[in-house]
């Protein structure tokens, strides 16, 4: 393993810890309330003020402090990333385990459902579902998780297919272990490393998906997410001059996704020695 690889993993880990720290301390770190309009001394709304000592990253078209919005956005990122990853892992791993272990008709039905999920274009589906259910953070999370389990399910199933023929599973069956016990005590720990790897990448994809849904205008109007910031910058026609409003959320999103990828790659290297 080259020093460069471990360096990149380290960078990812440090950045992610920083995001968690900022999210926890958001109310104390942010200089202003992210949803309260700011006025200048003359009582005028501070529209699109460039970065200054008072507003380190300037203000938005609606007179909101960009830095405070950026800081509060970390909370949405973590809520969406973690909740979606847990939901996707729960659905995907269980479908994969059950389909691979029982085989036959159960497998056919579950894999047909997976094929169906693969046939649905992701962003359009999420937009339709969120619009129909009503824009809220929770509905966005549901819409994302509703489809994203598909790749985890396929990978876990193929792992289970080979695991169930192995000696230790046969030994457990001869010893009289129940299906549930074999599945969750004997097989599950063996697919766990792969499941965790997929979960780590799912965090990144889920965060990007939430940003995309928010950018299309279907985000939770009562929350400040990075995608929402970009949406408002775009629809208010401010992207031509207000770089301080468009660059920070986009760069933060990108860095977060890159950090997750780097940490995931590092984890893959550690969990799968053949890749070294």
């Amino acid at each position, binding site marked *: 393993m*080259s020093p460069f690889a471990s360096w990149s993993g380290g960078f990812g880990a440090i950045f992610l810890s920083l995001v968690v720290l900022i999210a926890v301390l958001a109310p104390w770190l942010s200089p202003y309330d992210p949803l309260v309009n700011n006025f200048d001394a003359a009582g005028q709304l501070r529209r699109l003020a460039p970065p200054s000592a008072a507003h380190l990253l300037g203000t938005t078209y609606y007179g909101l402090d960009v830095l405070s919005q950026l800081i509060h956005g970390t909370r949405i990122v973590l809520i969406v990333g973690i909740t979606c990853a847990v939901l996707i892992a729960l659905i995907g791993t269980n479908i994969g385990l059950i389909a691979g272990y029982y085989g036959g008709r159960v497998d056919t039905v579950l894999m047909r459902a997976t094929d169906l999920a693969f*046939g649905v274009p992701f962003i*359009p589906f999420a937009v339709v579902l969120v619009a*129909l*259910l009503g824009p809220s953070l929770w509905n966005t999370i549901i819409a994302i998780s509703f489809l994203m389990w598909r790749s985890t399910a396929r990978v876990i199933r193929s792992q289970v297919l080979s695991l169930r023929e192995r000696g230790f599973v046969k030994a457990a069956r001869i010893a009289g272990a129940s299906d549930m016990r074999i599945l969750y005590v004997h097989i599950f720990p063996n697919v766990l490393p792969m499941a965790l790897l997929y979960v780590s990448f799912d965090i990144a994809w889920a965060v990007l998906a939430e940003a995309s849904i928010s950018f299309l205008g279907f985000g939770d109007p009562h929350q400040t997410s990075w995608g929402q910031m970009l949406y408002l910058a*775009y629809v208010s026609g401010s*992207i031509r001059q207000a770089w301080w409003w468009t660059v920070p959320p986009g760069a933060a999103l990108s860095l977060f*996704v890159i950090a997750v*990828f780097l940490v995931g790659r590092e984890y893959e290297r550690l969990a799968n020695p053949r890749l070294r």
Partner: protein
Amino acid sequence: MAFWLYAARRAAHTAVTLVLLLVFMYVLFRLVPGDPTTIMLGTGELPFEAQQRLRELWGLDRPQWQQFVTYAGNLLTGDLGMSFYFRRPVIEIVWPMLLNTLVLMTPVVVISIVLGVVIGTWLGWRRGERIEEIGAILALIPRALPVFWIGIVLLALFAYELRWFPIGGMRQAFFFPETWYQELPFFDVARHLVLPVAAGVLTSMADPLMIQRTALIEVKHEDFMTHARARGLTERAQRRLARRTAFLPVLTYSAIMVGFAFGGQVLLEVVFNWPGIGRLMVNSVSQRDYPVAQATFFLMAAAVVTLNLLVDLAYGWLDPRIRQ
């Protein structure tokens, strides 16, 4: 299994998937509170009796399954219903937008694959060198960037600041060519294409690139490559041979990529105001124009499913083991 039998079976699977998608979508859109009489005419403005008459006229008083059968039957004849918003048949609205989407999507996919294969080959050939490791990380970065943000940055820089390219749309109204090259037939569309295609390529290039790179690393140590080296082929000829062999997995992926491209396409079209099917879908959902939303969504899903079928068929044709 004979190929035609395999093909028939896959095609039947696809047909079932499409019908299930259609049912799923139908149910999804029926979850919306109210029915077309309230959505089209607003609430409370119409006397109850008149609403009832309309329901009977439009068949909304019949059982849901009958309504679905009517809908599916109409769909087969190309009748996608009437748009609430445009008050015109959905097919008339969707069709030109679908063509516009293809105008944007085709260059994105083709350029992504060509660049991905070229750069992926180069990186795979230099496997183990420091430049390869840095290159692999650099190639992954654009994939992590939100495509709409790339679009915003490109617009701010090259359209607003430098004024090299238009700020969006597909054609300029009243475009008067000034020099000879501006009179070329597709000049106006082409200059509108540059920025969205650049943004699309940046994000879609990474996957074919990584697949080509991995395949090339595997191919490099195959016997035929040793043979090629022993025969005294130049480095360039060797690399070309390896590139061609490693290209097969990329080819498989390309059809899947077109399917996934619809997601990114929606975002691209919205950022760059491209009058395509993705932007139409987003607008129709916001305007509660459900017949149009339903049609665009189903068309995109049908495209993904059909492309997956084509990949399966190509695979089954090339590799008989798959047909088992």
